[in-house]
């Protein structure tokens, strides 16, 4: 049996179509159920167990080996590097890590930046020769710029609709981010055949030209 930790929300929604195209089993009553663990049988891949986790927790589940593989955004892996194998770029749930703020701030030096990614933001602003104060928040980052807690935000942007609705504009696109297939280092060695089957199934589905 293979256990897969899925990052709930945007990543999972983006990846499931690809997952189905690869004929991988998908939890059936995903929408109605509040369960966090699903087991689905499959002819090709054997039983697949799904864990639905918060994105930031997926690398933790995988590095501890309670999940053999995981599906999670590259942003999470950048911010919280773990000793896991990064097997495949699933090219789904694509978005960009951006610096954004109110238009009036564009020409000014950044001073205070709100973000869910303090490590990455620190690296980025240092690389730009800027010294900023970082404000760590865990959600609704735009709010910080709207009410003046910060003059910039460093956050994921998918469509830009939330930014626009809050009167913010993108100043700089920092990194392209998409969903990744990761594997526990021991599982990758001990369940290699099963994991390779899933990887190549997903790869074939990707090469079919499907895009998010």
């Amino acid at each position, binding site marked *: 049996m293979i256990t897969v930790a899925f990052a709930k929300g945007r990543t999972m929604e983006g990846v499931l179509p690809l997952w189905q195209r690869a004929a991988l089993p998908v939890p059936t009553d995903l929408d109605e159920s509040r369960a966090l663990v699903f087991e689905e049988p499959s002819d090709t891949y054997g039983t697949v167990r799904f864990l639905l986790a918060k994105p930031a927790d997926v690398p933790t589940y*995988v*590095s*501890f*080996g309670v999940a053999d593989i995981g599906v999670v955004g590259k942003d999470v892996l950048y911010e919280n*590097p*773990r*000793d*896991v*194998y*990064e*097997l*495949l*770029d699933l090219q789904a749930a694509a978005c960009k890590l951006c610096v954004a703020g109110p238009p009036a701030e564009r020409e000014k030096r950044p001073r205070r930046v709100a973000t869910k990614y303090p490590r990455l933001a620190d690296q980025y602003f240092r690389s730009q020769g800027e010294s900023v104060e970082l404000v760590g928040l865990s959600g609704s980052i735009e709010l910080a710029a709207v009410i003046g807690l910060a003059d910039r935000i460093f956050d994921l942007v998918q469509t830009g609709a939330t930014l626009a609705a809050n009167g913010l504009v993108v100043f700089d696109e920092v990194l392209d981010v998409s969903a*990744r297939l990761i594997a*526990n*280092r*021991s*599982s990758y*060695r*001990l369940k*290699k055949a099963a994991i*390779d089957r899933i990887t190549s199934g997903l*790869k074939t589905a990707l090469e079919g030209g499907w895009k998010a």
Partner: protein
Amino acid sequence: MTWGLPHGFAEQPAGMRDVYPEQARVRRDTESRLLEFFENHGYQMVSSGAFEYVETLLRGRRAEEADDWMRWFDINGRMVALRPDMTPSIARMAAPLIANGQPEVRWCYAEKVFRRSTAPASLSWASGKAAESTQVGVEWIGPPAGAADVDIIALCQHAMGLFELEDWQMVVSHAQLTETLLAAQGLADDVRERIMDCLLRGDYVGVRQAHVDQAAGDHMLSRFARLTPLRPDSIESLLDPLGVSAAADVEDHSQRLRAMQFARTLWAELTDFAKMLQARGLTHHLSFDFTLTRNLPYYTGIVFEVFVPGVGAPVALGGRYDQLLARFGAPAPAVGFTFEVERLLAALTDGRWLGAETGGKETER
């Protein structure tokens, strides 16, 4: 029942972990079993001080590695560090003996090793780099590559057999083959460096992206995946001489041919090694994977790691380091490996060796 915030109890630095009655016994028993096994196989136990000069530890390594160590200045103003592993200390101790004509040194040890770590100990013991961990290992200085490597693999596998683990896998690679094969592909130095760095981190997506063309990177990875010296001709697809003629640059061309030649030499050694492993029945829990790399420059030959379910980092690891002793003034080939005891215990007891069932609160009155 409420938890009255206690006052006055001492805190502990990040990464340090206490081991209570019975748990400590379980750990010491495991160390002893391994040590006894190694001693029965002709390895003599040695020990050394917990810290060394940074200059000693850095011989044969990249200077950046010292960033991971606990360092300070001693009373004479020289920089010292807690040892990150035992190999440099053993090399320092053995070098004078080898220089004075002793043909070989076979030593074992059970010692604590140290690294800088910000992760809590509970996590780092099972998966990452622990601030403090116990290593029980052997070093065999003197014999060249070949039969001795097979003996070392056998010793490690038989030591695994001491423990009741159904499922474990030893993965074997080679410290020089991977990069040589990348050079034989005609990849530029900077691309090679990026790929090696990605392989080290286990970032296969990065390997594909480092290639100019991702499909080529993908193709190369799949050929690496099929590469095993148990099937000697599996290397042919990575050494295609027809691919070479396309190289426009003459110097580049000859560099590629040299790389191919060197790859063939290494491959011949590896196929002999694989035959010996097979003959001694050591291939049941063993697989080759040449995308497994190690960031210690002093490794020159085979490198290997042992994985068990539930622990995300190898429980045992080792390899051949033929250049290190020369850095201590006594050139001699050497090979060795070490067990990571806490990781092994995490696998053996499903992490419970630090929980109630193997000791803990219930047994303390």
